[in-house]
């Protein structure tokens, strides 16, 4: 059972004031409770906040009649029953009352009728339902983008399980979802402050110095661009199209009420050039992440590297067996670890993706955009907790897990002979130079053999001319 983090705040309140406070809690209080639920379930708080914002605008007293949606004449499981009403901050429906869901601690509970009146019960049940969709979306596409996972979860939550892919239907001339609720959710999500910005003023003050340092040292490199910039980066063509969907909303659509917090009050972004204008204004109010410079952090990066706006994710994909295509070249033949820029033959996994892998080949090995990134990922893995405490021999057995012992023995002998490092040496005790030697030996044992590099022709206005 989750504890209400606010309970201590209510300790001195009279029963009457507490009741009044509980009946119509402030959005901030609802947000805080949702955040505690998010932590308990291990879900991103921004996603839950965006769902609550889209569904009810954090209005715990909101009740609406759910209009039966037209599904090409077919109503399948998950659709709303006719005459359904939706209640509260997470807009729980009549037909969801009585369903059994899992709490964050693994126990099951039944959604009760109190979701109509008790905003905490409503939030708890809503997050439990959302969690089902989110986990399913994660499992279906474990390496997918966070945003897509959230969109899929919301489509399932809002439209029912059979419509989890509803968000993929987009408006003509735009990459925004066609369904108004999906669109409102996406806009709210993209407009939401990142977790780093969701902190109290005192926390901001306390961390002010370190945050400035983080900006200057480039640690902010992984923070995404704001929604419009991100879409522009992916679809430069959006520069020339307005957002027809938002300007012509479907009747009955839930209009996004973007009052996430007073400090971040702004209108929903549209993927057009006009919407970039506010972001280029100097001044702290427009900055999604406070920094020492007048420009928001993503724009600081853009200022330094203007080309980044139109750069795409580095390419690394298997075009056919034995051939990997990169941005500037094709690698053909050779050994797998050479083709994949993956000297240690790391398996593709979420971990590998977080450490630079851009894809996998058909046998399941990671592809890195450059050899140095592949080497770096191998080094990171060997120095991670799963390996660093092991003797060299055990580390190699773990590296080649489930291989027959004789294959592992050959591997160990090869590495020990090539490096001169004892098989009982703990990896954590190796010097950087010794670790490099081990990596080199592993590269050879993994079969390193160079093949053919075919440079791709770059098309410029000059070489297109006859």
């Amino acid at each position: 059972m989750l504890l209400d983090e606010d309970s201590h705040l209510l300790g001195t309140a009279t029963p009457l004031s507490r009741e009044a406070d509980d009946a119509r809690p402030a959005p901030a209080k609802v947000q805080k409770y949702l955040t505690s639920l998010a932590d308990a379930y291990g879900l991103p708080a921004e996603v839950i906040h965006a769902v609550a914002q889209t569904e009810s605008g954090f209005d715990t007293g909101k009740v609406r009649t759910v209009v039966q949606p037209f599904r090409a004449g077919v109503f399948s499981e998950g659709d709303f029953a006719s005459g359904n009403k939706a209640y509260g901050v997470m807009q729980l429906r009549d037909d969801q009352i009585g369903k059994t869901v899992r709490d964050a601690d693994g126990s099951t509970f039944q959604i009760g009728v109190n979701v109509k009146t008790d905003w905490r019960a409503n939030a708890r049940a809503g997050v439990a339902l959302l969690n089902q969709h989110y986990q399913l979306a994660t499992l279906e596409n474990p390496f997918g983008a966070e945003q897509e996972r959230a969109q899929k979860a919301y489509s399932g939550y809002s439209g029912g399980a059979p419509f989890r892919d509803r968000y993929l239907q987009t408006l003509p001339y735009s990459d925004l979802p066609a369904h108004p609720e999906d669109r409102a959710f996406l806009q709210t999500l993209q407009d939401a402050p990142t977790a780093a910005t969701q902190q109290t003023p005192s926390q901001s003050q306390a961390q002010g110095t370190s945050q400035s340092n983080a900006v200057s040292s480039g640690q902010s490199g992984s923070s995404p661009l704001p929604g419009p910039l991100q879409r522009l980066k992916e679809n430069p063509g959006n520069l020339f199209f307005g957002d027809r969907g938002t300007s012509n909303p479907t009747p009955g659509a839930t209009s996004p009420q973007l009052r996430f917090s007073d400090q971040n009050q702004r209108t929903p972004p549209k993927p057009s050039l006009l919407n970039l204008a506010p972001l280029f204004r100097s001044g702290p109010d427009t900055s999604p992440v406070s920094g020492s410079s007048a420009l928001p952090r993503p724009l600081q990066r853009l200022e330094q590297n203007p080309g980044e706006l139109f750069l795409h994710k580095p390419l690394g994909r298997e075009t056919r067996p034995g051939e990997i295509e990169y941005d500037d070249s094709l690698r053909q033949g050779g050994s797998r670890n050479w083709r994949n820029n993956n000297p240690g033959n790391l398996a593709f996994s979420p971990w590998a993706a977080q450490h630079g892998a851009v894809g996998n080949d058909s046998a399941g090995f990671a592809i890195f955009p450059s050899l140095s990134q592949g080497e770096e990922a191998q080094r990171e893995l060997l120095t991670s907790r799963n390996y660093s405490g092991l003797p060299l021999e055990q580390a190699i057995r773990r590296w080649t897990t489930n291989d027959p012992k004789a294959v592992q023995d050959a591997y160990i002998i090869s590495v020990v002979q090539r490096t001169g490092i004892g098989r009982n040496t703990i990896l954590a005790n190796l010097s950087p130079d010794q670790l490099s030697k081990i990596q080199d030996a592993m590269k050879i044992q993994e079969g390193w053999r160079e093949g053919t590099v075919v440079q791709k022709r770059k098309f410029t206005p000059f070489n297109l001319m006859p």
Partner: protein
Amino acid sequence: MKTPFPCRHAVALVLAELFTLFGAAVSGVPQQNLAFSKFVFTQRVSIPQTGANLAGWNFSLWQGRIQNEKSPALPAKLCAVQAESRSHAQEICYEGRAGNDIFPQQAEAKPFVIRGSPPECQAILFQAVSSWGGSGWGRLLALLVPDEPNRVLRNLLPDVVVSNQGESRFWDEPTFSPYRLLTVADVVGDGGEAHFTEHLYKIRTYAYREDRGSFLLIDEYKTSKKYASLDETDKIDVLGPEHAVIRRRILSLKPMVASEERQKWYPWDRNEDPKAYE
């Protein structure tokens, strides 16, 4: 005590694998095992409720968790509960473990016919992967049936793990056994070889023995030639070229016929060495 799983009430099976959200009508009894919450529900495995030997059971598949900085690994698992049960306390589970290895990732489960000829028998084919991020990983294969008297989901197979350089295949040889056979090919180490170079392979074949209620190793040999591994190919293909050899070797054994015929055929019933088949 092992109990031969019931295959008497078998009917035709339509394989179905549906992704459904967890919405079982359970009574709201709190789950006793808190570690349960760390597993991630994946899928309900649908069994046609038509009286087959798995009918009346609901199966759910749970992904495990790989080891990370904060928590140890948990194996993936398959759980079964009788449809009429109102409590998850009645649930029986099989966890993906083999020896000291645990298999948390990429768990899959589906109904699988292990005897096609009437009466039909089925089990749940469970697979999960073990990987430490390096160049080797393994896939655990299990054929699971509920063993109600012993309150377990019993694996009809011995520990069968196929490495990423290996290959496995179920196949039929009705003249030898009415049950499907499982054959696994995996590399044999030979000093001085690189990890994914050409290797010799060991071929193992397992067959179901009704009296034991499980699959047993009935044949094993090492290939006479080396086969390409992951440096030369994306898809290991050893069992295809070796099939003729495998079949010839299997057919040279005494057939595993129906139980009423068993007494006259099994060598261990004639005081021969039973280890030869185990």
